[in-house]
């Protein structure tokens, strides 16, 4: 009898091997990403219309931190600390928020095509931000635009979530079509606000809409810091539960996940992160789509690495993209959102085709 012939040998199972390789990959990637950031930050700080040698950048950094180093001349100090560093910090925050929001959203929807830009959450957040700028609202000081972006972004995630789910699943077609509808509606609202806004506000909005970090200042950094920090801090706590959610809602509940609560918290976190990014930098698309995908291909779909990894890679990608945006066509500056869309949309095409092939047509 074959049943008895086969020895049952849990010892020889090749199970742990790939898991271990993946864990090593995850550690290597994390180290690589951190190293990349450590290299790119001083390089980006030194590069531009007024070049500062990397050694001087490091010296100035050490000096400010009170760890020795030397103070530079007044112009260089001012360029570094009033222009470049706020911009770099903003790029890191926005990139990390977008990457992390993408990873979370894909996990919550159980769908690899979910991304704040694609499904319209970024535009939704933009509606609030544009409204606040157009009507000159500032009763919450610097935070006004962020708060408005958060509220309208939150409403949009909830609407998209409610509209694109049926029977506990989110089908690709429904999700993308919902995104089209939401984007159209948000576009109309933004147009309406532009119509009522005065010329100065229109200029401000138009520039902001292209997605740019050119207006970075420390107060702007402070304006997004609470949203971004809270979102980035909360997200990793839900990594294990997101893994379980990949099994489906009911099986996740069978394994002890309070699915409803998890979903509400994560939708809030996604809205926080998206609002942080959108309120300062406008709609920067595809970072949240491409970044988690690359990491998933390299280190597997486990969210314990994917969430912090996406934040790191998102920060790195956006910093590099911003560096390119301000140096490629110097002295002119490419809009950052245009650049990421230019690189990101072909990836989206490829992803669409691949998803379709896997499923053998749209469900």
């Amino acid at each position: 009898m074959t049943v008895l012939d086969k020895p049952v040998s849990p010892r020889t199972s090749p199970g742990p091997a790939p898991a271990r390789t993946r864990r090593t990959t995850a550690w290597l990637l994390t180290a690589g990403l951190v190293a990349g950031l450590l290299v790119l930050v001083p390089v980006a700080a030194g590069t531009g219309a007024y070049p500062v040698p990397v050694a001087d950048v490091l010296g100035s950094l050490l000096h400010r931190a009170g760890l020795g180093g030397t103070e530079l001349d007044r112009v260089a100090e001012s360029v570094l600390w009033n222009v470049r560093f706020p911009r770099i910090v903003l790029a890191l925050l926005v990139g990390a928020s977008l990457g992390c929001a993408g990873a979370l959203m894909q996990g919550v929807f159980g769908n690899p095509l979910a991304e704040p830009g694609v499904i319209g959450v970024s535009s939704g957040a933009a509606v609030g931000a544009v409204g606040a700028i157009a009507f000159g609202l500032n009763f919450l000081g610097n935070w006004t635009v962020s708060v408005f972006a958060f509220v309208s972004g939150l409403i949009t995630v909830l609407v998209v979530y409610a509209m694109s789910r049926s029977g506990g699943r989110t089908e690709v077609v429904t999700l993308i079509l919902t995104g089209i509808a939401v984007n159209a509606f948000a576009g109309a609202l933004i147009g309406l606000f532009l119509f009522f806004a005065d010329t100065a506000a229109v200029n401000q909005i138009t520039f902001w809409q292209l997605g740019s970090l050119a207006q970075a200042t420390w107060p702007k950094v402070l304006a997004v810091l609470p949203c971004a920090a809270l979102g980035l801090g909360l997200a990793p706590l839900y990594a294990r539960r997101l893994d379980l959610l990949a099994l489906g809602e009911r099986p996740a509940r069978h394994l002890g996940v309070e699915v409803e609560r998890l979903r509400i918290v994560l939708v809030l976190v996604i809205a926080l992160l998206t609002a942080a990014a959108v309120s300062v930098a406008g709609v920067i698309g595809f970072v949240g789509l491409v970044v988690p995908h690359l990491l998933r291909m390299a280190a597997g779909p486990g969210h314990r690495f994917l969430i912090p990894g996406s934040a790191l890679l998102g920060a790195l990608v956006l910093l590099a993209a911003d560096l390119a945006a301000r140096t490629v066509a110097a002295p002119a500056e490419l809009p950052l959102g245009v650049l990421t869309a230019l690189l990101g949309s072909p990836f989206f095409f490829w992803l669409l085709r691949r998803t379709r092939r896997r499923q053998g047509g749209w469900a």
Partner: protein
Amino acid sequence: MRAVKSPNTRGLLRLVPSRPLPPPPAAPGDVLAEAEAVRVLLGGRPVLDGVDVRVRAGEVLALVGPNGAGKSTLLGALAADVPAAEGVVRVHGRPAGEWSAPELALRRAVLPQSASLSFPFPVAEVVRMGRAPWAGGEREAEDDAAVAEAMARTEVAGFAGRPFSALSGGERARVALARVLAQRAPLLLLDEPTAALDLRHQELVLRLCRERARAGDAVVVVLHDLALAAAYADRVAVLRAGRIAAEGAPAEVFDEDLLSEVYDQPVEVLPHPRTGALLVVPRREV
């Protein structure tokens, strides 16, 4: 160990949930799940009506019946997935709705009818997901052993490193079962575990069910194959149109007239020529 918190403090400290306590070991014959006069509505239509059933530690209960009779709904009700419109479902002696999800996860494991996964996790990680309810508790130490045992018993260890999405239907079903076994809950609710499996693995899965029952667990299994139910179940409940038409040991319940009527298909029940075990086959005029 953290002290047990009253429901009120637990509500306040929801961000840091208190660790749910595992159930005490069950003695054979203990009722681990029961439905009492349960009526379940789906889309306003009664799918179960006045169903009474008890699931005891140490036995395999098979739910059989034609399509749409309410087998999966009854399983869902016992799993605390589907709320009862009338009547009461108790899991480990307490109404199903009063348990929190983490508490239930230590008490019952559920195998859904079809297994899907949104992201390509490797098989070993999928099985390990079954250990999630024990994370941080004392029995976390069992994790590796539970996963290895479940994978060996369901014969999925050979493709432990492959992504779940690259498996065949039958392989996926066994991986899903391995995950459920790794959970090591005292109440197992399996919805058609044999549907996608070949002959050998059907036998394997039901032998596993019987072993778990002998080891003191309660097993409920939805089956279509009446011969399998006859061979492996201690008790069988035959469902018809949302009600239990008969319940008891296979030898009592598998009656030609009853089955022919329930399935609207003439059925023969005969003893195996060699072993005398019950065989249930549709009557075919050749």
